[in-house]
């Protein structure tokens, strides 16, 4: 009966009691907790009633946020009621006013843009200049105009990772004495257990934007986090999330485990070989924050494929996959190859002498 009352602390899905393990487990994110653990975790959050101030802010958000919908790619774009979104940031097709936002989509925190449009364009141009095989249109001014200042919805998680590691490590030493070669092997039982705290792993809640692209422009400097206010949207667009925290949890779990693994492996000295017997990273608790993070975003459709390009609107870190004009590359590489062949033919005496 307990199971029905509790939500998963990691992804908010319903927890179910597993008679085999005698634990409450989440079918969605595969987390599991003892009843004592879950009671302890939930004790802090149960019966929390929104304050009056919080209720006011949600109402303000609902009243002053317009939602535009792209019929072509399905993107939902938010902006304040002082401006109108005309084109979709993703597919560049016209968008239509779809109504007002509900308070559930109001983010708790935001980091404002520090890079203006000119700075972002300058960075983009410098990045493009280094790549001579991008299609001409990608370098055009019309393309540059498509760069959009976008607040991307992020689920940011603080995770407590319980690490359990056990292995047998070998240290091997060789030496030669007289006409014999000696090998000394020392075997150690290596055990590491502990709690690793991973703070602020972000995962974007927008399914259209490539997750890897967003991970590439990290990290954001959370010391500049502010409480969300409608004023931050002025002059920029914001995306409405379409992946909730349960949806992004597998990514968070994977990255938190990766981080935990790095800590454990870094703590192990230099062994010649390591035979791992146990290596488990369980996420015991996750604290979520829904926030808007600033990204200068651009897409380019080339040969039925959408190429995405993003600049961290706070730090200026950029990432993206440049489109490759394969025909131009083939022509140039064949030209150079032919020039090399002719040169070698001439100097190697294939044509004369």
């Amino acid at each position, binding site marked *: 009966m307990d199971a029905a009352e509790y939500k998963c602390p990691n992804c908010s899905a319903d927890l179910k009691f597993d008679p085999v393990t005698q634990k409450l487990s989440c079918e969605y994110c595969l987390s599991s907790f003892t009843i004592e653990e879950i009671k302890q975790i939930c004790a802090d959050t149960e019966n929390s009633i929104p304050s009056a101030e919080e209720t006011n802010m949600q109402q303000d958000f609902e009243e002053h946020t317009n939602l535009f919908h792209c019929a072509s790619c399905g993107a939902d774009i938010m902006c304040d009621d002082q401006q109108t979104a005309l084109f979709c940031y993703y597919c560049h097709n016209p968008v239509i006013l779809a109504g007002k936002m509900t308070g559930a989509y109001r983010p708790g925190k935001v980091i404002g843009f520090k890079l203006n449009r000119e700075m972002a364009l300058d960075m983009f141009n410098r990045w493009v200049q280094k*790549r001579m*095989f991008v299609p001409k249109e990608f370098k055009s001014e019309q393309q540059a105009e498509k760069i959009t200042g976008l607040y991307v919805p992020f689920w940011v998680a603080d995770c407590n990772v319980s690490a359990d590691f056990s292995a*047998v*490590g070998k240290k091997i030493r060789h030496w*030669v004495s007289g*006409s*014999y*070669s*000696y*090998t*000394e*092997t*020392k*075997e*150690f*039982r*290596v*055990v*590491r*257990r*502990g*709690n*690793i*705290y*991973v*703070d*602020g*792993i972000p995962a974007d809640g927008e399914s259209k934007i490539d997750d*890897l*692209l967003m991970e590439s422009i*990290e*990290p954001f400097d959370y010391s500049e986090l502010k409480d969300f206010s409608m004023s931050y949207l002025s002059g920029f667009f914001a995306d409405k999330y379409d992946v909730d925290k349960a949806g992004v949890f597998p990514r968070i779990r994977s990255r938190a485990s*990766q*981080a*935990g693994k*790095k*800590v454990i492996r870094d*703590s192990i000295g230099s062994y010649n070989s390591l035979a791992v017997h146990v290596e488990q990273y369980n996420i015991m608790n996750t604290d979520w924050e829904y926030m808007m993070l600033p990204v200068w975003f651009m897409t380019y459709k080339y040969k039925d494929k959408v190429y995405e390009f993003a600049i961290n609107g706070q730090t200026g870190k950029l*990432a*993206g*996959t440049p*489109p*490759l004009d394969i025909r131009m*590359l083939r022509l*140039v*590489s064949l030209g*150079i*190859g032919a*020039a*090399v*062949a*002719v040169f*070698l*033919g001439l100097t*190697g*005496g*294939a*044509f*004369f*002498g």
Partner: protein
Amino acid sequence: MKKFGKVLLNIFLVLICIFGLLAVDSVIAKSGNPKNLSQGFSGDTSKSGVVDNCGLFEDDPRTLEGLDEAVKACAGNIGMNVMVYIAGDEKAYYTDSYTDEFTDILYDSTFGEYTDGLIYYMDLSGKSPAYDCISKSGKAMIYYDDDTCEKIFKTMDYYLPSSGNLPDADRIRDGIYVFCDKLEQYNEDASPGSFKYEHDTDSQPNVYVYVMDGKTYITKKKAPGEKMLRLMGAEVIGAIVSLLICIITKSRYRFKSSTNPSTYVSREKSNLYEQSDVLIRSYVTKHKIESSSGGGGHRSGGGGGHGGSHSHSGHHR
């Protein structure tokens, strides 16, 4: 299915390109029609024979006459000029390179430039080490390459005296007969194709000797086969360069890796409450180091080029 068709089309296009290039290479290789300097073999064996500079057969002119006839017959059989030159003590001061030069000049002055034939210089001058050499011209360069000459030298070592020892006329006589037999044997065994030979003297332009369709060519341009190989080599290197440019450029247009999540680890809050490295066992193994010993080997060869179109194979006794 569509993808499979595209792959097939690409393979087909690549094959067309390869065969197209081969056709172009073939045309380029055969173009130019360089002048054939080869004078061949006139069929006149009167100048072939044995020159006894050593005076070994001075007292036995009939033996010398017999040897001379045998060499002439050999020349007729193999279709090349052949001379066996028995060097006496007046050549004792000749260096190896001077001996090469001497045989080249002797050949050209006796048989003419760019003719087919060879001179076997048998060093009985008494110098140590003795230096035998074979100066080859025209077709002989192709038929009697360095390996073949080395085999002939090895055979002749049995009949020739060691350096510093006096020669035995009977053994030399037998040796010359064997030499003629060997020339005929290797001439039959040889099956030259489009061979090439690069003449490496400083004073003369490079001359290339090759046999094509049974005809000997001595030209100042490379053999078509050689040209073809060089063209194909240049094209293969060009293709590799093209491929490398494509691969490197494509790798630069791939997505770079994402941020490492360990950036987000809070070192202050994290706590490893159990960290242990306990020695569970230790053991030592030992192996006897196998000692190896071996003898040394030595191999050397000699040879150089001189004159109109000659090559040499030299041998020290």
